[in-house]
């Protein structure tokens, strides 16, 4: 659907009919009603969808929401090497590294936050990861939230998916 722009010349002075407004309101409502009736008759052509009951099918190669992968024992696969944070052009990844309780792992992320509001979904973090610890989900975009805080994903949320 293309959106056309129609330039309307505004008269310098309103006529008596226009200055009453009543007639103009009626004319406006008639346009609205015309569209309303048209949409009822041609329901299938409406471009909007009834989200979240109806969802768009994403292209097969779409990558959206991040997730952190786990080791077989359930601990994060991430070793806090900061490669993703370094590669990130939006600087939306915050990592704090710590000494892992498992001596074979040595280093693990104490904190791993992704600010989804800042993320530009470029996939550089996935590309940079040497441990295949961060991935992006197919099929669906970042679910909407009602506060900004909820869109800063902490390590627990990234791991639980």
């Amino acid at each position, binding site marked *: 659907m293309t959106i056309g722009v129609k330039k309307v010349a505004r008269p310098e002075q309103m006529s008596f009919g226009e200055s009453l407004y009543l007639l103009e309101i009626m004319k406006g409502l008639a346009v609205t009603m015309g569209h309303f009736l048209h949409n009822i008759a041609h329901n299938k052509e409406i471009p909007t969808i009834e989200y979240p009951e109806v969802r768009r099918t994403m292209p097969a190669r779409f990558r959206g929401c991040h997730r952190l992968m786990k080791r077989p024992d359930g601990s994060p696969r991430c*070793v806090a090497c900061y490669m993703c944070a*370094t590669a990130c052009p939006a600087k939306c990844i915050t990592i704090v590294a*710590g*000494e892992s309780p498992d001596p074979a792992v040595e280093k693990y992320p104490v904190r791993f936050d992704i600010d989804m509001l800042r993320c530009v979904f470029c996939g550089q973090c996935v590309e940079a990861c*040497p441990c295949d610890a961060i991935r992006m989900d197919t099929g669906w975009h970042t679910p909407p939230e009602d506060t900004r805080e909820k869109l800063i994903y902490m390590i627990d949320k990234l791991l639980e998916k």
Partner: protein
Amino acid sequence: MPNFTINGIAAAVPDGTTILAAAHMIGIEIPHYCYHPKLSIAGNCRMCLVEVEKFPKLQIACNTVVTEGMVVRSDTEKVRKAVTGVLELMLIHHPVDCPICDQAGECGLQNYYMKFGLHKSRYDLEDKVHKKKVQDIGGQIVLDAERCILCSRCVRFLQEVTKTGEMEFFQRGDHSEISIFPGRKLSNNYTGNLADICPVGALTSKDFRFKCRVWYLSSVESICPGCSNGCNIVADFKGGILYRLKPRRNDDVNQTWMCDFGRLEYKKANESRLLVPVLREAGKPVAASWDEALMTSAMRFREAAEKHGPGSVAVIASPQSSNEELFLAKKLASEILKTETFGFTSRTPGDGFSDDFLIKADKNPNSMGAQLLGFAEEGFGRAVKAISDGKIRALLIFGNVLSDLSDAEVESLLSKVSFVAQVGTGDGAVSRAAHAVLPSASFAERGGTFTNIAGRVQRFRKGFAPRGKAGNDIEILVGLAKRLGADWKFDGEESVFKALSEASASFSGMSYESLGSGGRAVAGGQ
């Protein structure tokens, strides 16, 4: 002075210069791991192989002395192939640890792999020989034996510099590894240097471990504020927080080393800082604006001087201040406040540990500067006596500690003064007793010069803006002087140093330009 040619460039070098050092002089870098300018030559890493005309085999540049008419090439295919081979041999058992290794980003193996290697491993991951990782070997060091390339720098450092010899090679062949002797941990005050000289990630700093990736850090040339030796350092920081201090080469002061105490000095600039000007009214601290704090201080000083004479005002300077700040403090005391009660003390809490290498008993970076600029230790005694006699009505005090007095002693002493203004960086007994707290910048947040115990004037530079609302000491002093009616026109530390070098005989003829990065000795210094 033998003449020689390297990669087609002819040069003359002093007698006894090795090819590696000679190449370095004319700006050609020859790869190396075991060579270190301040350690004996081991020649065991074989990375510095070069082609020398009339020699049948490649020679190691680090241990071949330049002779008359020598023709050296470090850029031929033969050399490249040999170096690549040496590197591949070193990487055979090297673990794929880069993601968790603190050395990543400043690692000799990474750098030379990108330059000479770029090969696929011909060795299966499963066949690698594994050694013990994450060993706490004492001092500030964590040892990972697996990452070691057996360059022996650490072994030589402990034998030649600290002369304690805690580390040695053990086992043979593929199983060779460095380690400490069983049950005998590193026991010297210079262990931090091991992390610096280790070209790979085998010896890393315990304190810096996992704190920050090195490529995020910015560096600034500085001077260690931990004692009066004035070791040259680089201060590494990120976003207004200091992460580590590393030694910077200065053959006249610290060569390429620094002590373990100095390495932890950065913490003082990060922790328990004074961040806002505070005025204490009727015992209650109230945050104030800079203008209010300076105005109130100036007013109280003027009041005391007018009512009770200039003898009722005292200034206690700090040997933690730079030469520039001490110069202004002296000017403020004698020219504006017109008091004779001023001094400084180099005494600090603690045992004043010293050794015959770098650690000095005087734990202040600028006691010598304070003396040269007209502050005396006797002056401090006089000031304390006048305070305990109740003669002082207004006191300006610099620094976070007052000699080696305990908190209770500081409190009872300062309670005898009706107005105490403190210019300091850290929270403590002095700031809790002060009526006006004027928070100042740490050594990494301001620029200036320190004069070390040998009389060498050295620059430290500003890395980042002061934390919180803390202000530059020079600006605080100028602000105070202006509000006391002085006509000071100083803009930054360089203009103050210019005035200082004109006013003080010890500093005459010095400028920031002539100090350079290595500093200069004062007239009459060593």
